[in-house]
């Protein structure tokens, strides 16, 4: 970990990342996390509970978005606090059998705040899918060197 608070400033961009999502990814996330709610893998069930279709786990979106911060920090252990609100569902269309993505999530981050006393940087993430913000107040606090 080599980030120093003296080399950082609020408003600085930390980069961006594009995450392509398929129904297979949601099945993998269900298995890895233990969240088997059928709204994340069964179209008929999802629409029966008044959703527009199969949606990604909010935790898939949150969990995949933070990798931008982890890679920037250089050590996943440096992320000491991470929070978000889930505002819009990420609709994942069925592209099974093709190479197309069922949804595309765009992530970018800027330094929102530096705390010299705690020696931390707060990274504010902007996370969108289909042109809409899907996470709000997505903030990760990184412990600096």
């Amino acid at each position, binding site marked *: 970990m080599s980030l120093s608070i003296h080399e950082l400033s609020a408003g600085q961009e930390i980069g961006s990342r594009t995450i392509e999502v398929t129904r297979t990814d949601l099945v993998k996330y269900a298995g*890895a996390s233990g969240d088997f709610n059928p709204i994340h893998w069964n179209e008929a069930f999802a629409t029966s509970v008044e959703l527009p279709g199969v949606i990604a786990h909010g935790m898939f979106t949150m969990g995949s978005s933070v990798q931008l911060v982890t890679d920037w920090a250089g*050590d996943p*252990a440096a992320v000491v606090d991470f929070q978000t609100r889930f505002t819009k569902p990420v609709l994942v269309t069925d592209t099974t059998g093709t190479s197309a993505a069922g949804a595309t999530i765009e992530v970018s981050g800027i330094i929102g705040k530096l705390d010299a006393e705690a020696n931390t940087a707060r990274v504010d993430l902007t996370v969108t899918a289909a042109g809409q913000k899907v996470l709000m107040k997505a903030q990760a606090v990184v412990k600096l060197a």
Partner: protein
Amino acid sequence: MTIYPDLQGRSYPAAEVYDVGREKIREFARAVKATHPAHFDVDAAKALGHGDLVAPPTFAIIIAQRADAQLIEDPEAGIDFSRVVHADQRFIHHRPIFAGDRLVAELHVDGVRAMGGGAMITTRSEIFALGADDSREPVTTTSSSILVRGEGQ
């Protein structure tokens, strides 16, 4: 739908122990499309000063949602899981989670409020690592709100 305000303040004590395995960290990291070597390669984790593989920042959701299941599956709570929407989530890490950790979670219901025909329920899990002598070291505090949608929501 009936809302159960008396759920507020309820706690569920630590139940089963969750053993954090290296392959589970690797599987979860792949599932969130994480590529940092500290999730996969023990030598890479050690080069950063860690004793073993480091879990991704949201790995604790596995343990937190197991704890939440005690509430959601509690017949007294009357929650229809198919109408649950995740509203917000936070992880405060007192220290990272490593492969080899033996974790337990205490669940606290911090808030219940009516929202339209449904309810917003806020829970918090205090996750501890068990030591050799069954001592408890604070590892992660997770908190989340779920919206249980009423009809037409």
